[in-house]
């Protein structure tokens, strides 16, 4: 039985009728066509689906859409403003913090959730924030460099 929910995604309000079995990830991707959040393991082990919900990074594959009712969701699509990339996005480009790009949206959202709360994190805090985002391509070195560049204001 579908339930009506309101989601605020990247500042836009959506009224949706969703089946309770739909995850937030499925609704973002399939109903709202926001395909930046990626689906890989679908059980909270890879981080590709990470979005920010009420200021916190969450695995959107582990959230029922009905549980996100009334919440503010941020996805990778909402980061660039007026054609200008977010400093994290700029840094990932400049410092080569990505290869295949599949983990990148989730990675950047995890980093953003951290920097929004703590603009000057230590290296350990950065690592903790992205420890749940698996990347098979980069070996993480350039990802860390990218995030540190933003922290150090060298984005």
């Amino acid at each position, binding site marked *: 039985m579908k339930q009506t929910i309101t989601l605020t995604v990247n500042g836009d309000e959506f009224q949706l009728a969703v089946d309770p079995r739909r995850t937030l990830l499925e609704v973002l991707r399939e109903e709202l066509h926001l395909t930046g959040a990626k*689906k890989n393991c*679908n*059980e909270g082990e890879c981080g590709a689906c990470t979005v920010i919900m009420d200021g916190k990074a969450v695995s959107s594959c582990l959230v029922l859409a009905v549980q996100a009712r009334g919440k503010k969701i941020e996805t*990778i699509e909402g980061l660039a403003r007026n054609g200008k990339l977010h400093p994290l996005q700029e840094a990932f480009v400049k410092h080569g913090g*990505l290869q295949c790009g599949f983990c990148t949206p989730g990675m950047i959202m995890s980093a953003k959730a951290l920097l929004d709360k703590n603009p000057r994190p230590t290296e350990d805090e950065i690592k903790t924030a992205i420890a*749940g985002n698996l990347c*098979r391509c*980069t070996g993480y*070195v350039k*990802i860390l460099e990218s995030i540190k560049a933003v922290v150090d204001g060298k984005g």
Partner: protein
Amino acid sequence: MQEYSVVGKRVPNVDSRVKVTGEATYVDDLVLPGMLVGKVLRSTVAHARIVSIDTSAAEKLPGVKAVVTGKDAPNVKVGWLRGSRDRLPLTRDKVRFIGEAIAAVAAMDEDTAEEALGLIKVQYEELPAVFDPVKAMKDGAPRIQDDAKNNIALERHWNYGDVEKGFRESDYVREDTFYTPSFLCGYMEPNAAVAQWDANGKLTTWVSSQAPFFLRRELSLLYSIPQGKVRVINRFVGGGFGGKCEICDVHVSASLLARKAGRPVKVVYTTEDEFAVQPRRIPSTMTLKTGVKKDGAIVAQTSSIVTDGGPYRSVGGVTIYNHGLANMIPYRIPNFKFDAFRVFTNNQVGMAKRGHGQIQMRYAVESQMDMIAEALGIDPVDIRLKNALKPGEVTVNGLRMRTSGLVEAIEGAARRSGWKQKRGKGRAQGRGIGISCGGFACGPKIASLTDSGAIIKVNEDAGIVVYTGASDIGQGSNTVVTQVVAEVLGIGPEEISVVTGDTDVTPFEPGTYGSRVSWYMCNAAIKAAEDLRRQIVEPVASKLEVKPEEIVLRNGGLYVGERRAMSFAEAVRAVQVSSEKGILIAKGTYYPPDVEWPDPANNYYGNIAGGYSFSAQIAEVEVDRETGQVKLLKVTAGDDIGYPLNEMLAEGQAEGSISMGQGETMYENIIVSNGRVMNPSLVDYKLPTVMDTPEMDVTHVITNEPGGPFGAKEVGEGFIVSIPGAIANAIHDATGVWIKELPITPEKIVKALEAKEKEGKS
């Protein structure tokens, strides 16, 4: 180091802006009007005759639009190479491993498709199965393929020099057996395909592929339609590492379902699908016997391997050939004998993964090298320097090393890591340091058509469009091709766009595998750019009344000496309006001039690639002797990649290699018991996280390989192959124990330490 204006620079990946914004779309992000969702039903038993498949309940489920079984598929076998087409894309009468595709359904939505799978009833008559390749080779073992006696799928035997004489002349001989299990490629984007047939009978399929042209060929053969009736379009590819080279049931089920339903169908693998059928690193048992002189110089080696290929030939002889290749690089072995078997079992199918067939052997060779060094009291660095291939050497199997920076790579890594101060001195603190070396052929010659092509089209405003068939799977081939073309034309990379991944549009390219793309594709693109340069320069030269060779393209302009005659755009414009040659289209094709296919009739002798990369890694670890826990602290590496086309991307390849190599050495392992994967999730198949990442220090030795594009060699495979040996040897330095099988888990270390303690007491 030669300086160029664009080549070698840290040019950002040309795809990165669309990747950081989430705009980059992968197969699963694609939605077509009327598209259905497909799912694949897989075998639950390892070896059985299929008695019956009842799909009636599934077909009746509302929302189900098509159900296909093997009988809906043409009775045509597919595979990677001509000699290995032994696999029905959906099996018909028999299943040969757990996870083999039996049927597929397409439905209005994923929930219905999943439900329908559960309604298909398969009746099996189980057959005796065999999971151990050695047992499978014995007389009386269950037969898996009709055409293979003793389940020997393929074998390779080489014999160079006289190994027996070599052993007699050696001062020290030892034999060890090593084992490496199966590893997942572990790309982040699940394999997926969308397929659609049009009214002309043309199949278009959107895929995530390392080799779209091979996929086109197999689909054309499968459906008995010309290649012109198959269009393979690559989306952004979310990693591959070897696992997206081959035709898979994802491609076949999508196209079969789309044909039957008359609507587009998307199939995306779940994690369960990936663990069932993702092409994986082949498990190898390797017995190495090596004879050396007192000074550590290798005199002779025999290398005998048995690999578990699962029930199909897949990539065929390449994997086992590559094991031998890894014996030949990077040390000099004057007498060498190689006996290799790919054996059929009822385990999952083994295929290619980064460092294909070679990382296994490098781990074995490099571990044994340290055992030998220890026995002879030689420093592990010195024994490697002693045996390192030098420029100009030809290996006994015919590989020609025109350049080699291995010696400098070893020396540099040893110096920067503080090898002399650390080696053999950290055991009391649980610290260890170990070295390992490797190398790789830049695009080995494995099939008949391995040429690359590139086409360049010039826009009306002098913008450049480069068409290549290469798949950028994240490694950055779109970026380096941009750089080499920009360099030749003397313009900025921003003037160039790259079109790839559409078999109807680009020239042929075998694919992104075997470390061939930078070498082959960039060389082809350079030739195309040179062709374009000629087409522009010749008419302009006659206008300027100078010789064409007097004109230099740089800085966005055409120069005669120091004089800027005109801008590149002005020159293009001049050509465009001046003659019947105004439509500027250039092409280049490339095949290395001095490469030979290793001929079985000639002992598999031959120089299989135009160049060979080298690497030396030094790993530092900390081992908790009580728990066996290993922390990889630092990897200091030197590599000879000829010349880095893009320093930032080259570093990225090295760093990614270290991480992936670390995973195989320390954490990862597809655990299979009686044909069943016991750890089919990312909970228990442990990819390295950022917390596990060691400090990395990578420096290049520049050798400017004459045949390479701007002197470049491959990067990314020659680097990974030597990681396991470095970590294994560091663990030995820290603990005194050898672990002869991967992964080197804490548990194995503890058990080995306990055994050693007992041994010491008795």
